[in-house]
């Protein structure tokens, strides 16, 4: 049976990995290539790289790093951040990315999902959504979680899948950085409306949170986290072993 995936996420700015708490207070962690290799060796099933650089120099540095990672680490790589056009897809796919994650770019131009899915296949297009509770509904936030679009997250995700998104990353702003566990309620609402893989993001603080995630919501395919892996609070190897002990199908290395 297919295994539950564990995915470390690396936010990269100016060639370095950073991680914020509630998207603020960026702090430098490590060299992205070294960190990627370490994660791959300890059993990460996939890696996500977010380019949070604004400058052209930073962008070039990012694609250099991506190329280096893709030529030495042979697990699926997803790239996001600053993906606004099909040309952006092309740029990162040529550097070895397997999937491309769209967020604000798709909010501005939902057609981007269709165009990219048509050209590269649904499996290549990941719709990443930052969502937060607002007045009893889930709202989509743009620009790294800073701007409330007023859009209903469940509707947005449903329409994104209809347009060809092959996978959903749901990042709950309410639980992100708080380390009290994934947002099971929000995830359940998303899983109820889509048939594509759903990746849970935001809130993991310990191994038990991943066990709770997969036991409570077996429809969720993967758990994504950043800081707990970067700071060594959770070792991926231990996490995988604990999943297996709890009868959750995991790839052990």
């Amino acid at each position, binding site marked *: *049976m297919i295994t539950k995936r564990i995915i470390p996420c690396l936010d990269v700015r100016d060639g370095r990995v950073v991680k914020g708490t509630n998207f603020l207070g960026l702090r430098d962690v490590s060299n992205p290539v070294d960190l990627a290799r370490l994660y*791959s060796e300890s059993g990460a*099933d996939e890696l996500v790289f977010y380019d949070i650089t604004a400058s052209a120099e930073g962008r070039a540095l990012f694609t250099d790093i991506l190329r280096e990672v*893709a030529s030495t680490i*042979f*697990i699926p790589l997803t790239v996001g951040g600053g993906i606004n056009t099909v040309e952006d897809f092309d740029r990162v796919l*040529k550097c070895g990315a397997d999937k491309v994650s769209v967020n604000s770019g798709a909010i501005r131009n939902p057609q981007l999902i269709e165009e990219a899915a048509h050209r590269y296949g*649904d499996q290549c297009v990941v719709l990443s959504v930052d969502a937060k509770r607002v007045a009893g509904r889930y709202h989509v936030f743009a620009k790294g979680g800073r701007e409330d679009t007023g859009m209903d997250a469940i509707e947005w995700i449903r329409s994104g899948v209809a347009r060809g998104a*092959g996978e959903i990353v749901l990042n709950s702003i309410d639980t992100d950085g708080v380390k009290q566990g994934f947002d099971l309620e929000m995830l359940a609402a998303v899983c109820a409306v889509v048939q594509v893989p759903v990746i849970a993001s935001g809130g993991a603080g310990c191994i038990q949170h991943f066990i709770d995630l997969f036991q409570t919501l077996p429809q969720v395919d993967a758990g994504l986290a950043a800081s707990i892996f970067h700071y060594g609070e959770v070792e991926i190897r231990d996490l995988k072993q604990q999943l297996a002990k709890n009868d959750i199908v995991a790839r052990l290395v």
Partner: protein
Amino acid sequence: MIAIIDYGVGNLFSLRSSFAMIGEDVLVSGDAERIRSAERIILPGVGAFEDAAAKLRQTNLDAAVLEAAAAGKPILGICLGMQLLFEKSYEYGEHQGLALLKGSVVDMRKAIPADLKVPHIGWNALHLKRPHPLFRYIQEGDCVYFVHSYYATDCDQSVIATAEYGAELTAAVAAGNVMGCQFHPEKSGPVGLNILRAFCEI
């Protein structure tokens, strides 16, 4: 030397890099003459069967693959490249493949329970059906990375490994010098590299 056939389908960056990683000389080419000089052939592919089969024919590289097969050179089809080795595919219609292997490629939705997601995407365990040189460096139960919605069926004796996903899906095939894997060895970590390494020794 290994030739990776470049017929304009998919991204060959990782495949090229993975052979470099295991220290093998690799040529990525769409030139039949240069492919002819290779000792081993990789037929990659992602996307839709009809489109890929048409591109392979338009570039006349189908002839290069058939010629290499007839000459007894080891050939490895990967993902859609494996599916192209079969007689036909029923992906959006009915399309002819290279017919180097017996069998056809069909929608997995007809074989698996409706509640399972399609495509079959992620890491799944290989069940080795019989010993094969491709498996020299791997073990029963090792996980590899899959992304596909169609699978090969009625493969006669060629199935050498399967993966369980609501049904037993064909994961690797071999008949003489013609081999294929439905999964992506270039995305399957050390297990995948070990399969490519074994292929280079066949």
